[in-house]
């Protein structure tokens, strides 16, 4: 691979030919905000939040779909870039419910993070807003199109990672939305509830129903485990609050092995608190199971009671 010389924010950088401005900036330590971009998915260039300033270019190009070239001079946080990003965020927020106080995704929402990062408080655009019904027709996924920012990650994840093509864009302009074939509820679609779309959604439009209302994101402790429900033995994260597992999510920080969550593995976690789980050894006495201690189950109770009698 050839390398090319570019400058980012005035600093000379050598990067591999063929990568995008976004990747080169990331490698050089500059964090460019993105919403529609995801490393495991095809390039989309829809949200424009990752725009940068490149000397000699007429407009602000989207860094996620612009390849680097020799001598390129890139500004990732110039005044023009910041102004553009603020406007984009304002436009998104103009049609987004401001219910971060109770939103399940608060603390784990890219829109919220970037609104904070660019201090977008007052939205100067006001107009019509969406009022879609909530799709909670199934036990697994809540689909709240009012929170959707149309980044299309879910559509690409479903098509490119799972090959299922359950979700797609429908209608035009303001009425554009993400939906299933024939605009049905998830329950009536062919969705297998693998949660790949949930894992890539940057906002609260697609949410894990199991965890809804059970914990704030910052209260969660994450522990990675290997799943026990098929031959692949994928890794996923247990989400634990106060020592209790409240749900399972895709392992964070492994975009290259992404797309592993599937239904069986996620649900296995329900088992932990199943009332049928024997918590003590059981011995059958007169046809009925009786809970006993491990000592009794192992036939050591006599021995132990004798030893205890010696102590006395």
């Amino acid at each position, binding site marked *: 691979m050839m390398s090319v010389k570019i400058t980012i924010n005035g600093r000379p950088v050598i990067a591999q030919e063929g990568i995008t401005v976004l990747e080169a900036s990331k490698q050089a330590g500059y964090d460019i905000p993105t919403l529609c971009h995801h490393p495991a998915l095809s390039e989309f260039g829809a949200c424009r939040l990752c725009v940068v300033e490149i000397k000699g270019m007429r407009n602000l190009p989207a860094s996620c779909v612009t390849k680097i070239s020799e001598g390129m001079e890139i500004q990732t946080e110039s005044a023009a870039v910041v102004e553009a990003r603020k406007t984009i965020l304002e436009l998104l927020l103009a049609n987004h419910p401001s219910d971060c106080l109770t939103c399940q995704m608060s603390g784990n929402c890219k829109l919220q993070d970037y609104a904070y990062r660019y201090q977008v408080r007052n939205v100067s655009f006001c107009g019509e807003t969406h009022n879609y019904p909530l799709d909670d027709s*199934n*036990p*697994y996924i809540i689909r709240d199109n009012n929170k959707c920012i149309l980044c299309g990650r879910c559509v690409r994840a479903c098509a490119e*990672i*799972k*090959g299922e093509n359950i979700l797609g864009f429908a209608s035009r302009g303001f009425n554009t939305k993400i939906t299933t074939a024939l605009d049905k509820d998830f329950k009536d679609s062919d969705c*297998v*509830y*693998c949660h790949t779309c949930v894992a890539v959604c940057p906002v609260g439009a697609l949410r894990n129903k*199991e965890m809804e209302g059970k914990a704030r994101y910052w209260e969660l402790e994450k*522990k*990675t*485990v*290997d*799943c*026990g*429900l*098929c*031959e*692949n*033995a*994928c*890794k996923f994260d*247990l989400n*634990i609050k106060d*020592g*209790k*597992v409240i749900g399972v999510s895709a392992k964070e920080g492994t975009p290259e092995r992404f*797309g*592993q969550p*599937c*239904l*069986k593995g996620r*649900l*296995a*976690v*329900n*088992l*932990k*608190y*199943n009332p*049928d*789980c*024997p*918590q*003590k*050894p*059981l*011995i*059958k006495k007169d046809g009925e*199971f009786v809970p006993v*201690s*491990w000592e009794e*189950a*192992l*036939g*050591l109770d006599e021995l132990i009671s004798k030893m205890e009698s010696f102590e006395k």
Partner: protein
Amino acid sequence: MTNSISEIKDTDFIFAIGTNTTETHPIISLEVKKAIKNGTKLVVADPRKTEMAELADIHISHPSGSDLILLNALANVIITEELYDKEFVEERTENFQELKETVQKYTPEYAEETIGISADTIREVARGYANADKAMILYTMGITQHICGTDNVLAIANLAMLCGHIGKPSTGVNPLRGQNNVQGACDMGGLPNVYPGYQKVVDEKVREKFEKAWGVSLNPNNGLSVGEMMDNAYEGKVKGIYIMGENPVLSDPDANHVEEALKKLDFLVVQDIFLTETAMLADVVLPAASFAEKDGTFTNTERRVQRIRKAINPVGQSKEDWEIICMVATAMGYPMNYDSAEDIMKEIAEVTPSYGGITYRRLEGDGLQWPCPTEDHPGTPYLHKGRFAKGKGSFHAVEFVPPNEETDSEYPFVLTTGRRLWHYHTGTMSRRADGLEWKYPQEKLEINPEDAAKLGLREGDKVKVASRRGEIEIAVHCTDRVPPGTVFGSFHFRESAINKLTNPARDPKAKIPEYKVCAVKIQKLA
């Protein structure tokens, strides 16, 4: 698998036989889908029109139990048309002549006549497989769960060796294991004839090695396979059984016989995370810990040894399996002292050559694929590079054997069994998940609409299905996923325990029962 899961997407040709990959191995099927997107040709051989069959360029719907005719016919074309890799056959294999003679009579025309697959299709598939640069065979229980399961596997190996399609990246023979750690359980000697690392029980040197390692004298004879245990229990020759994490009352063939056999035991111990149907028959139930509550390793289908970590403490007084085994062994007079799962891994590395270089320190990250004989060995992504483990690869001339039980006028349908996407095995875990019960609450027997019409059945009607061993009641699902004359059901549901019907006849070598073919009759219930 001789290859790694990630190699699937880069192959040029996939021949998938007896594997319902999208439902039973959903994550691996994603790699198959990636391959298709990359232009890989997919041929699926399965009596049922599964989702895999719909993804395929060619779907071969051969009758359940006729794999050897199909596989031998493919070998016939490859040899007759001289498509085989002469250099590979010459240098790395033996017994070619014997194979050539045996497959001579399995012409594509013979196959067309006997199993109804057109000779042209067989030629096209044979040519496609042989001429591909990189080609893989995927198979699962559709191949192995027959009385000729071992021969089926040998016939697959014949094809791969004929074409030199083994020992290279994205090129090989890939049985997809059915569970997260079934590979590991076999690797660790969870079989009646081997110690860890497939070291033979009957080999005196091996026995001496383990006697020394464990400080006990060991039985020089092979043990019993699970089916043989049940037969012996039924006859009163086996008096006690200790079952861990298995539910044979639902999972073993001829379930009525299994239940009776277990009831005849003097003593039955079951160690499980739930009170399964089998546990209900036990004298003592020992509460085990689930995957999130224990430390250790799982070895997955690509031979990857992966660390599992205790995320939460065991619920109640349940304990990790290794701790329970140590306690029982100690109570029985053999003090088994390990401090931790890691302590056991050290011993595994000492006595198991293929795990010799595996330590917990090296398992951080994505794990290691065995064989990994030494501390500096990087692990093995694909097997048989350059030479076979045993030296030369032997061709095995295998003849077609009809299924143990064939249809007749009284039992006119072939029943074949398998899994559903939504559930897992006997439902011990998946049927306790509310969401899955919502999604797939009851099993339905798949029946072809033609057969349904003849029997006067409509979608959802209840039927009684009987074999020579037992009967169940079940609703029907009319679908052309199954060909006329064949019905299909999963073994997940105790309410319609399909294994009350299945045939316990076993493959003489591997002792695997013929779950995939039995004769049944179907009667509409009012």
